[in-house]
Structure formats: structure tokens, C-alpha cells
């Protein structure tokens, strides 16, 4: 295939693209600049691929606590589910990084859950670990069959301090199903990551995603949900902790394609040092999509004078029978609370730690899954200690 890319992107493997449509899409795109609205606050030059080889992860698939995977669940490497790629996100509309991923992906998860399967108190678990230098481009396709109720944790780590990662995830939640998806960014504190997660939520289905952004030097995330059947609900929960000069930029798009659908975005961001965050949410109600309930809230906790948070919770409403609200607030932790805790004998570090833990718990508890909540708390503890300066 003759590669006539307009983008100045060099990635090994592009000469024999894995997905023809993705490569054609990629060929039609130009590389974004900071003048593009979406990239105004994160310079795309910082995440430009520069000839890296795509590294395959070492992945493990199973249950969070080692139990047996329930009957009716297929969970393995993406290579088994190639035919489903771009069935959720139409390839002609994907962003550049998703198209690039589709052209060169290596590794990722393929989940297919049949009808009426439940993981109950347990959770499916996928861990991708990337060794060696290069670019990570894992691709996951996750489908939960009608009437099933499933929880999945997908967790990424890497060794390479220069790692550029562009994971893509497609999610298909069939009628009446509930899918709880926990996407954990734990690459390392110097990685640059551009994840794209695109979900399709059918009639009476419920998609609940939790994004945990701890670590990475730079994250520019694209989360999008299409609510395509009446009674569908999409929840996006986010907890982000930034330290040093880390930069998080999250784009949360909720598309109400039909009426009687619900979206709810709750994103809590805590920043120390010179960390920076951007939250750009958008609730889109298409014409005729009546009786919509859309909500988005972004709360930012700035723990240092030099930290910076930008918030753009947008609404685009073309139906009138709607209830859409959003809110954004910026605050330091309540000084009275910290004073109170210190008066009870806690050190400044302990008091802050407790308050930030509570700030995140308000989001994690919404997920209402004890085992995953405990696992997350354990994973995040080290990051919290580092960010809040236990050792300073």
C-alpha cells in the first residue's frame, strides 16, 4: 500500500497497516496544531510520534482476585476480535490518534460477554505492561451482551520513561446490559498518553466508566459516549491527581442521539506543584432527542499556588424538553477542615492526605464496587504519598 500521509508522523508498521479503513482515514487527516480548538491547551507537538516502533505489551487476562472467569465470557488478546474493530466508532469520523492506532495497534483486550452473565461482586481484570522503548498502541474491543452485568478493570503500566502511548478502546453495551469499566492510567510519571474511549450504549443499557489518571507527564484523553436507545445511561467518573509539571487534558463528549436518555459526568481533579488540568465536557442533545437528562460536574482542588485548572463544561442543546445542568467549582481544601484535623493531632501531611482521599472517595463510591474500590485505593496510595509530599 502506498503511504501518502499528510501527517508528519513516522511510525514503524505503517507500511503494512492492519486496518485499511483506519489507514485511509489517517491519510485524509492533517496533524493538529495548537490553533485547533481541541488542542489549544495541549500542544500536539508534544505527542507527535517520531519514528518509534510499536511495542507489544505483556498482557494478563483474568479476574481481579484470581477467580475463574465466568462462563459466557470471552476475554483474550485483541487479535481474536479483529473483525469488530471500528464497529462502534465509525472509522470515517475517528480522531487522528484513533486512526493511527487502528493502523498499527499491537496488543489490547477483546471482551465478549454473552447474554445475562454477571460478574457480581467480582471483576474482570486486564493488565498490559509495556517493556522496552517505543510507542504503545494497544486496542481494546469490549462488548457486553444483552441483560449482562459486568465489571472490568483495564490497567496500563510501562518501563520506558519516554513512552508515547495511544490506546484506543471501543465499548458496545447491548440492550439492558450494565457495564462498569475502570480505566487506569498508571504508565509512569514521564509517559505521554493519548487515550481514546468510544462507547455505544443501547436501549436501557448503562455504561459506567471510571478514569483514574495518576502519573503520566502528559495525558490528552478523548472520551465519547453515544446514547442510541431510549433509557440508555452513560456515566463518566474521573479522578485525577497531578504533581510536578504533569498535564492532564480531558475531553468528555456525551451524545444524546435519541430521547429519554441520561448522561452524568463527574470529574474530580486534585493538583499540586505546577500541575495543570483541562476539562472540556460537552453534552450534545440532537434535534428531536426529547426528555434528556444531562449533568456534568468538574471539581478542581488546587493544592499549590502554581497549579492551574481550566474547565469548559459545554452544553449544546437542540431539543427543548431537557434538563441539562453543569457545574464547575474551584477551591482549595477547606482550611477549617485542615485546621480541625491538625488540632486533633494530625500532621499537615496527614490532614491533606485525609482530605484528598475524601475528595476522590466521593467519586469512587459512586461506582459502588467494593473490591475494585479497595484495589484502586491500594494502587493510588503510593502516588498520593508522592504527590502530597510525604517524603518532602
Amino acid at each position, binding site marked *: 500500500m502506498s503511504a501518502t500521509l499528510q501527517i508528519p508522523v513516522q511510525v514503524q508498521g505503517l507500511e503494512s497497516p492492519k486496518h485499511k479503513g483506519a489507514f485511509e482515514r489517517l491519510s485524509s487527516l492533517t496533524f493538529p496544531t495548537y490553533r485547533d*480548538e481541541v488542542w489549544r491547551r495541549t500542544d500536539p507537538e508534544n505527542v507527535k510520534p517520531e519514528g518509534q516502533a510499536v511495542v507489544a505489551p505483556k498482557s494478563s487476562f483474568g479476574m481481579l482476585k484470581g477467580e475463574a472467569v465466568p462462563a459466557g465470557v470471552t476475554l483474550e488478546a485483541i487479535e481474536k476480535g479483529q473483525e469488530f474493530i471500528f464497529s462502534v466508532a465509525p472509522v470515517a469520523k475517528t480522531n487522528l490518534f484513533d486512526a493511527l492506532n487502528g493502523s498499527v495497534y499491537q496488543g489490547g483486550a477483546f471482551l465478549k460477554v454473552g447474554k445475562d452473565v454477571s460478574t457480581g461482586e467480582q471483576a474482570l481484570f486486564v493488565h498490559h505492561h509495556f517493556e522496552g522503548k517505543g510507542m504503545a498502541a494497544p486496542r481494546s474491543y469490549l462488548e457486553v451482551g444483552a441483560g449482562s452485568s459486568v465489571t472490568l478493570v483495564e490497567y496500563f503500566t510501562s518501563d520506558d520513561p519516554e513512552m508515547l502511548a495511544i490506546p484506543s478502546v471501543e465499548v458496545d453495551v447491548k440492550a439492558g446490559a450494565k457495564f462498569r469499566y475502570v480505566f487506569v492510567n498508571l504508565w509512569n510519571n514521564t509517559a505521554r498518553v493519548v487515550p481514546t474511549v468510544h462507547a455505544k450504549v443501547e436501549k436501557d443499557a448503562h455504561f459506567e466508566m471510571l478514569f483514574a489518571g495518576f502519573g503520566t507527564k502528559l495525558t490528552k484523553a478523548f472520551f465519547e459516549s453515544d446514547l442510541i436507545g431510549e433509557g440508555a445511561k452513560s456515566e463518566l467518573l474521573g479522578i485525577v491527581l497531578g504533581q510536578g509539571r504533569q498535564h492532564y487534558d480531558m475531553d468528555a463528549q456525551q451524545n444524546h442521539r435519541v430521547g429519554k436518555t441520561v448522561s452524568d459526568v463527574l470529574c474530580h481533579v486534585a493538583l499540586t506543584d505546577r500541575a495543570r488540568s483541562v476539562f472540556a465536557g460537552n453534552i450534545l442533545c440532537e*434535534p*428531536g432527542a*426529547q426528555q434528556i437528562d444531562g449533568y456534568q460536574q468538574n471539581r*478542581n482542588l*488546587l*493544592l*499549590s*499556588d*502554581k*497549579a*492551574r*485548572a*481550566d*474547565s*469548559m*463544561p*459545554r*452544553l*449544546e*442543546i*437542540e*431539543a*427543548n*424538553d*431537557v*434538563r*441539562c*445542568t*453543569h*457545574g*464547575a*467549582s*474551584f*477551591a*482549595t481544601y477547606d482550611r477549617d477542615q485542615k485546621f480541625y484535623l491538625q488540632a486533633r493531632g494530625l500532621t499537615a501531611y496527614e490532614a491533606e492526605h485525609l482530605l484528598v482521599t475524601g475528595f476522590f472517595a466521593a467519586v469512587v463510591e459512586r461506582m459502588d464496587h467494593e473490591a475494585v474500590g479497595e484495589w484502586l485505593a491500594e494502587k493510588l496510595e503510593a502516588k498520593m504519598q508522592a504527590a502530597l509530599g510525604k517524603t518532602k
Partner: protein
Amino acid sequence: MSSDAALLEEIGQDYKYGFHDNDEKYVYKSSKGLTREIVETISKQKNEPQWMLERRLEALEIFNSKPMPEWGSDLSEIDFSDIHYFMKANEGVEKSWDDVPEYIKKTFDRLGIPEAERKFLAGVSAQYDSEVVYHSIREDLEKLGVIFLDMDSGLKEYPEIVQKYFGTIIPSIDNKFAALNTAVWSGGSFIVVPAGVKVEIPLQAYFRINAQNMGQFERTLIIAQPGSSVHYIEGCTAPIYASDSLHSAVVELIAEEGSTIRYTTIQNWSNNVFNLVTKRAYAYKNATVEWIDGNLGSKITMKYPAVHLMEEGARGEVLSIAYAGKGQHQDAGAKMVHLAPNTASTVLSKSISRDGGRTSYRGLVKVAPDAHNVRVNVRCDALLLDDKSRSDTYPYMEIDNKDVQVGHEATVSKIGDEQLFYLMSRGLSENDAIAMIVNGFFEPFIKELPMEYAVELNRLIQLEMEGSIG
């Protein structure tokens, strides 16, 4: 239906001020299009100092070099080569109402200006097309030392003040339309309130676009010296024309220590006007700036009144309403830029879309790194009256300091079924109930207006609502 409502129905959707002069009597009218020669001619006609000509020419270069904004509304219909950039209705500025030409007076009579003057309103600066033709200042204002002139006279009489402040708040480089205005500006108000003077009565000016394809580029500069206060009212009405018109004003406010400026606008351009306005204020120590902004008319409005809170204790407030009916897009908002500690700002925006109209709130809250102890509260409420209309909210918040309390809330909804049901169970018709809810929705804005304006605005809203409820 009350007799008032019946009368309104009879008037129908016709524009309230839908009249215009049959023969256009202009002393000077520039040819269409924007060239260096036109800019030079404007400056020469006005006998301007050399530095102003240089400013204009520099701005023209900037205008030509900047691309059209690609965000906000669709501005592709504007044809800059099809606009008259300057025309002069008569020579000089009239001191007395009696000297104003009869045909102009007739138009202003219908706008109610003599009426307003009888009601002891302050100086009337009535802008007819590009230039101020009538300007009276009440004697007590003169005694207080308040300067209230049209901008052209301001430049002639106080060139050093104008040169010192002109374009310092909104430089030509700011945006394409600010550059356009700087290149071809004509008219507008020039106000200086001396230290400690509190102007008790609102100063007001009426603007209207008259000639077909006439651009209107007024330029306003208001300086409130320490401890003073002033309320300026700008009301816009315009006759209906068949082809599109462009209105691109620049308004600069300077509120020095401890002063207060309130700037009230009721924008009711006819539905073919592109209204692209840059408004910005600098508020210094303990000063307060309030923008009270009503957007009812125009085809497209893009306007985001801004307050830069420059020093400690400054306060900024924007209170705005927008109404978009058929074919209209109101892209309005507010910008609050906190550059100093202990500053506070409030934005309250209310909008209604009906009959395919679109309203957008686009706002910025910025807190600079050293601006600690800042409080900001933004609230946007939108009502959609039918399923053809659209409402968007595009808030931008850039917070660089930890010691802040910033709140932003927005809601978009239709009129509540329970509210309607309650009112109708009390004997109101559905239409009367909707009108009552809409009036109540705009109430926080209307109550901030002087009474004549409140009455006029209520009537305008009633007229606008009529199509949907009558």
C-alpha cells in the same frame, strides 16, 4: 386575552421601529468598500490630527492581515466590499435641538428622544448614522465638570486625553473587528467624570443604523476618575432593511480607584444586522464595573463584555439577557479576568430561544497566578420554548491560583409543566401563563433598568413573545 394583547396581535410581528426615511440626505457618503483612500478621506473629512490617521492606517493593515474568526457564529455572509464605511448627515455638531434638520428630528421623535429629554434625562447624544448630529448637555452636568461629548468632538476638544487613552484598553491587534472599528470609527461617546463626582442621572445615547448597507462603527471611551460614579445607557433600535448591515463598535471603560461605572445596553437592531462588538473595562483599586447587557435584536450578535480586575478590591459584574427568535443567533457572554488579589466578579446570564433561534453563552473566567482570594460566581440559565430552537453553553475557566472560590452553574430547560399547570389552574390561559413565566425569567435584568427602559423592554419582550403565544 387582554386588550393590550389584542393590540399587540394587531401589530403582529412587524418590527416596532420598522420605518425609515425615504430620501437619504447626506452631506458626504463614502463609496462602498474599504481602501486606504477611504480611511484617509474619513480622517481628512474630520480634520483629525496626524496621529489618529496613523492609528487608522495601522489598524487597517491589522484588519487586512487577520483571518475571519472561525468560532462562534457564521460570519461568511459579511461582504466587506459591500459596505459604506462613512457618511456624514450634516456639518458639525448641533448645540440646540432646534437646529437639528427636520427629517432627522422626525425620526428621533418616533424614537422618543424629546420625550426622554423632558423627563430630565441627562445629555442626549443621538447618533444619526455615523455621526452625532445632536448633542445637549444639561447645565448641571457642565457645572460638575463632566465631559460628555460625541467622540469626534472629544478628539477635537480634548486631543491629549483621547491620545492618552484611545486604544489602550482594546488595541487594534485585539481582534479583526476591533481593528476594523479603529480604522473607520465615527461617532460614539466620550465621557470623563472628574474625581469625586457622582453623576446622579443616567447619561444616554441612541444609536441607529439608517442607510442601507451602512456600517456603523462607533467608538466609546469612558473614564471615571477616582471616587466618581456614572451610569451610561446605550439603546439601539434600527429600521428594517432588505440587505445585511454591519455594526462593529468598540467600547473602552476605565474605572480608576474607588469609582463605579455602570454601562447598560439594550440592543434591538433589526434582524438583518451583524452586531460584532468589543467591550472591555479596566477596573482599578476598589473600583466597580457593571455591564448590563440586553440582546434582543440583530441577525447575529457576538459580544462578550469584559472586565479586567487590575488592582485589589476591584469588582466586576455582568448581567445579561438574550432573546433569539427566527433566524437569530445571540452569541453573547462575559469575560472576567482577575489580575489582582481580593477581587470579585459575578456573571448572571439568561437566555430564551424560540422559533428556530439560537442562543449561546460563551464566557471566560481567568484568575492570574498572583490573584489570591478571588471570588467568582457564574450562572447561566436558558429556556427553550420549542423543539426547533437551540441553546449552547461554552464556559471557559482558567484558574491559576489555589486561593480562589469559583463557581459555575448552568441549566437549560423548557418551561416546567408544573409551573404551567399551577398558573393555568389559577385561571390563566396557557399563553398568558407562558408570558408571565418569561417575564419572571428576565426579571433580575429588567429591575436593574431605569423605568422608561424597563417599560420599553417589557413591551419589546411582549412583542417578541407574541408570535409564540398569541
